[in-house]
């Protein structure tokens, strides 16, 4: 009996861990989306944090918290550089450019084996304590809550919903979006190092297009208008394959896709939608 519980926990713990790691990526995507930018850049910021973190674990004795900080800062530096070039683009082109950035990231990772291990990747002999992961996620989610309530959050909402109206109210959309990109970079970098430590391995495939698509899907699924939406979406999106595996193991991916499709069609604004909640409250 104890064995079954332990087995369950073993399987469950890793799912929980990946759900939390994915939550970082989803939050990084939400950070830009909530300021009106559709960007897949979090993958690139994740790669910056992930490979830097991996190298620091392998070649230094820096304690974990400092590695996390460094990874976040690496992501933020990359994101701010990208933002300075990309934010001139209109939103559709910005989305496409960020997709191109993900493709280029892979080529760069493959071709800088000294830094990234190239095609073989890097193995990282350092487990990630789940309580560290959970603690950092709680702090990050708390920060997103605080951001949402702040003047930054109010201005970002205005920029997202109607940029032209926002700018006529004195809000500088580029400043808001630059901050959004910086936050996305920091959180994405954190997610990258978490992913690397969780997998105990990083390779060019760790940060590629499927990650971009899953994290966008996670955000939209959970609700892209609510600070907790991305966490919820990432959890559902990580748990779904496990659940599907239990019921229809060989049709797992098809089940995932179908679930995603149904949610998009019937809940296009996601599971958590503050506007719908308010409308419901108003009707009562």
């Amino acid at each position, binding site marked *: 009996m104890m064995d079954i519980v332990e087995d369950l926990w073993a399987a469950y713990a890793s799912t929980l861990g990946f759900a939390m790691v994915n939550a970082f990526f989803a939050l990084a995507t939400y950070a830009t989306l909530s300021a009106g930018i559709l960007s897949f850049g979090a993958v690139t910021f994740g790669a910056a944090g992930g490979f830097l973190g991996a190298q620091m674990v392998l070649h230094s004795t820096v304690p974990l918290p400092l590695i996390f900080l460094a990874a976040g800062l690496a992501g933020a530096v990359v994101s701010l550089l990208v933002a300075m070039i990309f934010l001139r683009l209109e939103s559709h082109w910005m989305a496409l450019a960020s997709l191109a950035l993900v493709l280029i990231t892979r080529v760069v990772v493959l071709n800088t084996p000294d830094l990234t291990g190239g095609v073989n990747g890097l193995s990282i002999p350092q487990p990630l304590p789940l309580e560290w992961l959970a603690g950092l996620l709680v702090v990050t989610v708390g920060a997103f809550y*605080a951001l949402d309530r*702040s003047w930054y959050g109010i201005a970002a909402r205005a920029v997202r919903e109607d940029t032209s109206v926002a*700018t*006529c*109210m*004195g809000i500088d959309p580029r400043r808001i979006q630059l901050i959004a990109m910086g936050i996305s970079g920091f959180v994405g970098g954190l997610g990258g190092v978490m992913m690397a430590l969780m997998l105990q391995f990083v390779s060019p495939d760790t940060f590629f297009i499927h990650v971009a698509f899953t994290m966008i899907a996670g955000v939209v699924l959970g609700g892209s208008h609510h600070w907790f939406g991305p966490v919820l979406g990432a959890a559902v999106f990580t748990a779904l394959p496990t659940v599907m595996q239990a019921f229809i193991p060989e049709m797992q991916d098809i089940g995932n896709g179908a679930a995603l499709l149904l949610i998009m069609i019937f809940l296009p604004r996601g599971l958590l939608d503050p506007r719908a909640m308010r409308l419901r409250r108003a009707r009562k």
Partner: protein
Amino acid sequence: MTLLALADVTKSFGGVTAVGGLSFTVRPRHVVGLMGPNGAGKTTIINLISGLLHPDAGTIRLGGQPVTRARPHEIAGGGLARTYQNVRLISGMTALEQVIVGSYLRRGTSLLASILHLPAARAAARATRADAMDLLARVGMADRADTLAETLSYGEQRRIEIARALASQPKLLLLDEPTAGMNAAESAEIGRLVHALRDDGLTVLMVEHNMRLVADFCEHVVVMNFGRKIAEGPPAACIADPAVQEAYFGKQRDAQRHRA
């Protein structure tokens, strides 16, 4: 002493001149009407003044500062606020939140302090909220403060939009057809509000194509047709001007003559 001055402002879209060589000034504490038939270029002027468009030629000065090439948020920072012909409130926000966004420029705290929820920032936020409530009360919407704005009637949304524009404590308020879609009683109410605001020291430039409303609301009128100024002066004189009569009624008269 002028608050707003346009000199020889020209703007064309793909060869079509929307505004041609337009000059006029707005003095402080006046209500100025910008009128003209549909398609005269009134909304283009509003967009040029607020910085959403830039003129091809000419200069615009706000409070003595040239703002011809300035970006909209810089012009807003210079003391300009506006409303829209088709009300543009922000989806998902309550009436009170709409007005709070409008006070972004007067938030009285840095973004960082606000993110960190420092005590000073919290106090500033409370003050902002109280001011926003006062503004809602001023436009008669205090009892709807916590209602999702998009569920309110068109007239109510217009009033919230005016409260939002006032929240930045502008020097100059641009109203783009503030009474469109309102009945006579609601329009008169807007007129009283505009006069009260002027008495408090605000300057208002309003676009209106309804001549009767312009005559009632404004002290000074600029009349446009096909992007050019055809008359300027006190409302009664402008409306009586043959060129204005021609622009507004010319076609109907011609039609009547043909029928007769």
